[in-house]
């Protein structure tokens, strides 16, 4: 470790060594994604029957991705949001009821739903900041409240059968806007997800908000002493997480052409897995949206591929758990600071040190 320059060091302006938005973890995940897609394409008949079918598969898992994007902001701050599932259900149910009971236009109702998700996120932040309750337990508590409210709002016969334009959100493809050769190829969900992925990626990597978000995640104290209003940052993160969860709930509503008070329950654990596998540290600060996006695709295609290959739901879930554990273990073994076990072993193999005499 010799970073001490000679005495006239002030003449030197050190340059940046690298400024890629992605690191080794993202690249490793991308390799894994390629392996998953190619592997299932070759080995599982029905997985790849043309580009439309492959892209069409994404419709089955992108709502998880939308939740994961929002949740990654919260986890970057070092918090957690266990209420995303309940928020998704509650806002989808309320939006559907607005449409079916009160005749509100479905898109207006959907907009109200997303806004409501933001408000529920604000409530989470309020409970965390005002009542001083840890995020884990605070959002656990609110998830019970929101879940109850969703059941109450749904009634015995929750609405279904939305207008065709709305169901296209979950199951339609983008036509007209794109070149004719792409007609029927690109799911609307994929476009929505891609747009948010780019937006969130830019937000976290290069926007002032993203910078303070990461800073709060690494060190809330240092952020406060730097004049950052950390409360506002947290409030924004939880509100965005809530709004993204609602959006996912509405996409699910459109995909199923129906709402249910428990429809969001499945989102939570998978979305957390996606964020964590994407390289976002559960302790905050570290991680990129690009990693989360790739991990959404890896886990999504993996699950669809395994189901098509004939594995049962349970085996697929077990394998997802195993992959999560194995990849984080591997990541720990080769950690960034070079102190991981594997790095040390590697350094020992590569460069045996001869003993040196003490010059004194």
């Amino acid at each position: 470790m010799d970073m001490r320059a000679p005495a006239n060091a002030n003449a030197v302006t050190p340059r940046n060594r690298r400024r890629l938005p992605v690191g080794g973890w993202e690249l490793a995940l991308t390799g894994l994604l390629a392996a998953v897609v190619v592997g299932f394409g070759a080995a599982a008949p029905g997985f790849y029957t043309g580009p439309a079918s492959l892209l069409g598969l994404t419709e089955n898992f992108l709502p998880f991705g939308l939740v994961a994007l929002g949740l990654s902001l919260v986890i970057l701050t070092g918090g957690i949001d266990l209420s995303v599932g309940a928020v998704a259900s509650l806002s989808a149910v309320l939006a559907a009821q607005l449409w079916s009971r009160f005749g509100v236009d479905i898109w207006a109702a959907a907009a109200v739903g997303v806004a409501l998700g933001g408000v529920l996120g604000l409530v989470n932040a309020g409970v965390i900041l005002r009542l001083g309750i840890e995020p884990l337990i605070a959002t656990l508590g609110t998830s019970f409240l929101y879940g109850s409210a969703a059941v109450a709002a749904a009634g015995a016969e929750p609405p279904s059968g939305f207008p065709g334009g709305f169901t296209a959100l979950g199951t339609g493809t983008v036509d007209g806007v794109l070149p004719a050769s792409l007609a029927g190829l690109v799911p609307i969900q994929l476009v929505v997800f891609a747009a948010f992925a780019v937006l969130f990626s830019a937000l976290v990597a290069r926007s002032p908000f993203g910078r303070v978000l990461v800073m709060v995640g690494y060190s809330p104290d240092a952020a406060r002493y730097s004049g950052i209003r950390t409360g506002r940052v947290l409030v924004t993160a939880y509100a965005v997480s809530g709004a993204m969860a609602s959006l996912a709930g509405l996409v699910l509503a459109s995909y199923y052409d129906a709402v249910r008070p428990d429809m969001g329950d499945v989102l939570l654990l998978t979305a957390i897995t996606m964020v964590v596998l994407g390289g976002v540290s559960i302790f905050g600060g570290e991680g990129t949206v690009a990693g989360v996006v790739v991990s959404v695709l890896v886990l999504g295609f993996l699950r669809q591929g395994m189901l098509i290959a004939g594995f049962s739901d349970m085996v697929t879930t077990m394998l997802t758990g195993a992959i999560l554990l194995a990849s984080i273990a591997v990541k720990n073994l080769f950690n960034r600071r070079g102190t991981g076990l594997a790095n040390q072993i590697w350094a020992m193999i590569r460069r045996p040190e001869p003993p040196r005499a003490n010059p004194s």
Partner: protein
Amino acid sequence: AESGTPDTAKRIKVAMVPKLVGLSVFKANEDGAKAEAAKLNIDFLYTGPVTASAQGQVDAFNSLIARKFDVITTTSNNPTQLAPSLMRAMKAGIKVVAYDSDVAPAARDFFIQNTAYPAFGKALVESVIKYAGPNAKIAILSSTPDATIQNEWIGAVKTYLAATYPKVEIVATEYGQSSPSQSLTAGLNILQAHPDVTGIIAPDGAAVVGAAAAIEKLGKTGKVFTTGASNPDAVRQYVKSGVIKETPLWDEVKEGQLVMYVARLAANGALKDNDTFTAPGLGTYEVKDKVIVFSEPLIFDASNIDQYKF
């Protein structure tokens, strides 16, 4: 359609997708279906989610579409949520046969109803009121507030009660979330909070077991009676001990057989929306507006329960 053996020349792939894979009643369907499939030259697959989630069923449907199955048979967690995916299957030329719990009519070719709702409602009422008396105060212990089939049955129970036993009063409605433990707790709570209740109608497999266990634990055997919709294995001990005098269901194994038979007919295109057919070893069935009623309720009691193992 013609009676007798259907055309089994072409081997077809049929999947059975239950609400969730870990319940004995669905396992009984599977047993029947598997046996029948072997006779009908069917490649049979039993798959589904581990928890009762529509998402899990849709995942299963999607993979079956990709694998080009000929028929999907399913009992749905939710009538509306599964519809888009099943309609996609139908568009891809796959026949869809719902059984047990229906999906939206537009999203399936045929529905095999366990028993007619009014008949089952009547059976539920009779198997309790016969013992609790026509002035009884009773409670309902269901699965979840929005379970379609349970709500249909509860509706039928109420209609039948109003017409036949107007003095019977329903004092509480609780939900056990299809979980035996939550059903047990709910059952205990009902009996403690309403000591005058002498009958519990629990039209759900987990609920009736929970209610029966609660009655037994409180030592109210012979004073409070319960009934529900459960496979005989799960309630055998309670039927023998007298907590449950009678409990209606249907023969799940046979139902599984019928599901496969209908799947074969549907794949062959040999069944019309309104039709009759005779399945060897099962009986003659009428198709009415795509709906086939499987059987009258089958009442289990201490005398016959040991004939059924599922």
